[in-house]
């Protein structure tokens, strides 16, 4: 069955094929753009945070009463937690990475207020901080015990002599130069020296483009609400969470255990919107593809039924079964290709609209051929069964009088 007669046959009965081609085109546009967003979000969620998220527990506690001694409460709590079997280590921090809550500062490499500061998240913890998060130092050293003192809320400590920063922050501050040992200046123009560089550590706000920028000051933060970061042996986390809550609660009734949460849960909450969007779009894609496939199957089946006499005649005239299958597949291929061509135009248009109206990222062009390939495979699969059915129409149909 030749290409040209098929084309002219389609053209003479245009409406159905045009509708299907249009549908394929719009489907392609939606699917490719949605798939792009989904993959972007999934990549965003799966970024390496540098933190051992699965094995970290976070506890929020708060003491009350006039005579509440924050420092000894903290010391007792940390000692207690560390004594629980299965706990690797525990640290006190001012804020919790990936939690959505954090403090930020601006750092400069010169003590000049007119120079623009580099934004960064700021953490404060002691010697065990890195270990409690499972974060690795790539260069330099961790804090010494002597450098770590209690920091109380109403106090205004001077800038510490030593700080740790992430590589991302180092790149922002010093570019290609080696940041180790260099000096940076806080908003108060006080200096600190970088004694250690962390390879990768995500800060508090996952939606921030400077998520990789963190600076760590040595100290034990003694706030009204205190945050304990606890790392446990693999597999022990879920068992230990209620144990920690109970033991802490019972050890001091003047100190409320506000919540005990896994860092995994906190991080998931931070990524909730991205995950939600990815899931919603995946559902949309599935439904859309399913609908289009069903329509193709439905319409093709209908055409087979409609053209039974014609198929029988062709068989009588010498068409083999494979010729009939080929005919239907080729017809479907023609329509799909027309749809794909139009679809490419639409996809680019929709991508442009997404970029300009909603500020989304520009579509990665490689998604286009990938999308077309998937579409082509699906379309061929959808038409295969009706085509097979067409091929089994017996040639004797040709001589039937009705």
């Amino acid at each position, binding site marked *: 069955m030749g290409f040209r007669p098929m084309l002219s046959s389609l053209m003479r009965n245009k409406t159905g094929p045009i509708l299907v081609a249009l549908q394929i085109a719009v489907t392609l546009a939606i699917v490719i753009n949605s798939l792009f967003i989904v993959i972007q979000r999934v990549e965003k969620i799966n970024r390496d945070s540098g933190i051992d998220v699965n094995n970290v527990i976070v506890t929020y506690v708060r003491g009350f009463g006039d005579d509440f001694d924050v420092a000894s409460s903290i010391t007792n709590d940390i000692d207690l937690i560390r004594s629980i079997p299965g706990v690797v280590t525990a640290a006190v921090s001012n804020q919790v990475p990936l939690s959505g809550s954090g403090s930020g500062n601006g750092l400069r490499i010169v003590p000049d207020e007119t120079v623009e500061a580099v934004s960064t998240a700021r953490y404060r913890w002691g010697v065990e901080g890195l270990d409690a998060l499972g974060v690795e130092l790539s260069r330099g050293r961790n804090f010494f015990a002597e450098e770590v003192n209690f920091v109380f809320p109403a106090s205004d400590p001077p800038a510490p002599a030593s700080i740790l920063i992430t590589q991302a922050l180092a790149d922002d501050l010093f570019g290609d130069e080696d940041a180790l040992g260099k000096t940076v200046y806080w908003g108060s123009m006080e200096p600190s020296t970088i004694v250690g560089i962390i390879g990768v550590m995500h800060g508090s706000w996952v939606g921030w483009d400077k998520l990789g920028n963190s600076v760590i000051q040595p100290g034990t933060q003694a706030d009204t609400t205190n945050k304990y970061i606890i790392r446990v042996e693999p597999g022990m986390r879920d068992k230990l969470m209620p144990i920690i809550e109970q033991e802490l*609660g019972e050890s001091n009734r003047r100190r409320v255990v506000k919540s005990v949460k896994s860092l995994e849960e906190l991080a998931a909450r931070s990524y909730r*919107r991205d995950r939600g969007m990815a899931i919603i779009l995946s559902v949309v894609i599935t439904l*859309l593809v399913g*609908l289009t496939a069903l329509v193709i199957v439905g*319409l093709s089946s*209908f055409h087979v039924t*409609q053209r039974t006499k014609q198929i029988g005649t062709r068989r009588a005239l010498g068409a083999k079964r494979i010729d009939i299958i080929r005919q239907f597949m080729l017809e479907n291929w023609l329509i799909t290709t027309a749809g794909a061509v139009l679809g490419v135009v639409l996809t680019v248009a*929709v991508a442009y609209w997404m970029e300009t109206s*909603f500020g989304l990222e520009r579509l990665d062009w490689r998604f286009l051929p990938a999308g077309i390939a998937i579409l082509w495979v699906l379309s061929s699969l959808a038409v295969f069964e009706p085509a097979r059915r067409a091929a089994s129409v017996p040639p004797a149909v040709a001589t039937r009088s009705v």
Partner: protein
Amino acid sequence: MFNYNVKLALKSMRRNPIMTALMVAAIAVGIGISITTLTVYYMMNGNPIPEKSDVLFAVTMDSWNPLRPFDQDNPERAPHQVTYHDAERLIAIAAGKRQAAMFESSLIIEPVNQDDLPFEAGARVTTGDFFSMFNVPFIYGSGWDRSADAGAEPVVVLSKQLNERLFGGEDSVGKRLIMQNTQFQVIGVIDTWEPTPRFYDPINGAFQEINEMFIPYSLTRSLELISAGSDWGWKSEEITSFEQWLNSESAWIQYMVELESPRDRDAYLAHIDAYVSEQKRLGRFERPLNNYVYDVMEWMEYHEVVANDSKVLVGLSFLFLMVCLLSTIALLLTKFVGKQGETSLRRALGASRKIIFKQQIVEVAVIGFSGGLVGLLLAGLGLQGIQYLYDSPDGLVTLDWVMMLTAIGIAITSSMIAGLYPAWRVCKIPPAAQLKTQ
């Protein structure tokens, strides 16, 4: 005739159940997705307090760093919270009809009996006008007045949920609570109040749950209350005491005002400008005069309360609806082609073109209606899914009557539009043309 057409429609739909199911499914899925995304968008974009949204204003004053603007991406904007010092002064000036200076905090409620554990509850620390300004409904008691504000009285208004937890839901007016070493007296309990979006504090989350209790703003100093919300500072200042904190340039107070009418906006702004000019003479507010007040809808827009993702989804879902319509047209065409025999018979028996056309449109409308109903079910499911995924408040994901009618309306209208061309094709069939076999 309409009933007859409906009966015929149902018969025709039954005759080819797979085709019918496919058409209804196509419309249902399209409606389901569109209505889900549209509801979320509509609720996000809605006016949470329509009766007053044009007389309530958020105040911003540009007390920021003279060297660079507060928002690098939008340099014309001033910080959207004010300093404690400025809030105190504004309260004293009392330029508008009512005013609310407020921030989020949390306090520990100490146990009534020794066996209970103390727990932390979130609080909105605010001036007393809050309740009348924002039309907050009470089930017991009331809020406090300006004299209570002035006297820094330790009173508290509870939310319905907190009242349930502490006092079993009964009338707790007059009862006492110990928080922050102070004995508070309950003076009111509010009913469920979930303005969507949370217009009085979009900064800390436009779709958060409501605050659990309300206490007077004037207690901030005496109880050394700390903000649990956001605070921003540009100046490096030495802060070693709470008092110094209160006097700093850190902006952590939200200030909103109610005016008599929308027209009073400019006059009020003049008051603010006058205040800032006075402060400039004292060496503060080193940036050029840049104060602004935003009414509720402007404030929502300023904080981009409607999530970008929501807009993207609405756009995509209308494209999706288009696909569903194309499917429907294609399916209708094929279905109607199969009806040629019956149609030409009817024409031979006396049905005019108009009658045939009407019958097809009714059939299409019935299919559309069915699709709309199923679509509503799907939308309900979809909204449940959204609530689960995003942990949204109930107000955001409720299908109200307007939405439901809209859904059915869109379903029927769009399927009728889809059905126009196929119906026209069918009624063109000449009488008895298909009665001869070929």
